[in-house]
């Protein structure tokens, strides 16, 4: 409202234009430490939380299509799928996967870590947002690397991001695995 000299400023106007609008501001909406705000519509904000999952153990994988790890690590580590992050998103999220990844014994092959989305969205893992290495030349070569990608085709709601792995030929390996999601 625009106040006018001499006009009565009513309780209802205060409640609508001051109280209710204050409750839509950032401090009015803030609930816990470490979150941030995004816009969800004209004059509307929402609190979001960045989240990360990590798996330190090494696992292997031998599928040419993206899949969960299906082999123990080189030291016999138990197979642990993921990392996986479930959170509320709008239609866009920054996703970062990273790991110590490689170990394919065929010198020209690729070893890759990507991610898929399930829940309110359904997006398959593909090379477009993968990290990894190609043609590193042997079973002892690895990269410490990550890949950041802005996913813009999400369906708003509860979405689960899960790391998936693939090779072009012989088994690859990944450890120090991380998957981070920053929803908007």
């Amino acid at each position, binding site marked *: 409202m625009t106040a006018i000299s001499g006009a009565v*400023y*009513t*309780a*209802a106007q*205060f*409640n609508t234009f*001051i*109280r209710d609008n*204050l*409750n839509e*501001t*950032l*401090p*009015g909406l*803030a*609930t*816990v*430490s*470490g*979150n*941030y*705000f995004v816009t969800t519509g004209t004059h509307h904000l929402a*609190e979001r939380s*960045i*989240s*990360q999952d*990590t798996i*330190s153990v090494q696992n292997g994988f031998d599928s040419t299509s993206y899949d969960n790890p299906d082999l123990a690590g080189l030291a016999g580590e138990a197979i642990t799928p993921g990392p996986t992050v479930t959170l509320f998103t709008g239609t866009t999220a920054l996703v*970062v996967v*990273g790991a*110590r990844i*490689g170990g394919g014994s065929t010198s020209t092959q690729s070893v890759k870590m990507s991610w898929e989305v399930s829940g309110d969205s359904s997006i398959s893992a593909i090379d477009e947002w993968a990290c990894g290495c190609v043609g*590193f*030349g*042997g079973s*002892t*070569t*690895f*990269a*410490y*690397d*990550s890949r*950041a990608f802005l996913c813009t085709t999400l369906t708003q709601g509860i979405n689960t991001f899960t790391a998936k792995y693939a090779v072009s030929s012989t088994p690859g390996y990944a450890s*120090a695995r*991380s998957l*981070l999601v*920053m929803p908007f």
Partner: protein
Amino acid sequence: MTWTAPMTAVFGAVYTAAQFNTYVRDNLNECAPAKASMIGSYFTTSDDNRVEERKVTQAVIDQQDSFNSASYIDPNGSSTGNSPIAGPAVTVETGSVAFVAVGGRIGGDATGGDSVKMSWSCSGASSISATDTWAAGLVKLGQYSFAYCNRGYLATGLNPGQNTFTAKYAVSGGTGFASYRTLLVMPF
């Protein structure tokens, strides 16, 4: 100053100066425009009904330096003829969480069987040592092999306050090299 849940006005009741100061003035001073002080910053939550201005910050060192320690250290040599330059390092005000990304042109170890890694440590309000868990680099690629690589990682468990993130370097043997080094911190 803290946020106070806005009052509900009642028809016929006196709306006092004290109420205005508490529920309107003080609350407005807790809002983002009142706290905004820097171009290019953003706002995060620091508690229930409390927000803070944060700024993403990056430091860059182009010079190629070398390192020959199996534990994470500052560069201790340089093929340029200059003194090695520590870092990059970034000091920012953080909450308990920050996104940290290190990257560079990393490799060059003449011992073909060794790893060359760039990680980061945190000092100041927090104390976190550099580890392989959030490192960028490569393993066993040989003297003439480098990777332009990076690693993005969410640092959690920080003590809120002024935290300094500093790039650190390690090899498993021999001597490694890094140039075009970057360290970026986005605090929450």
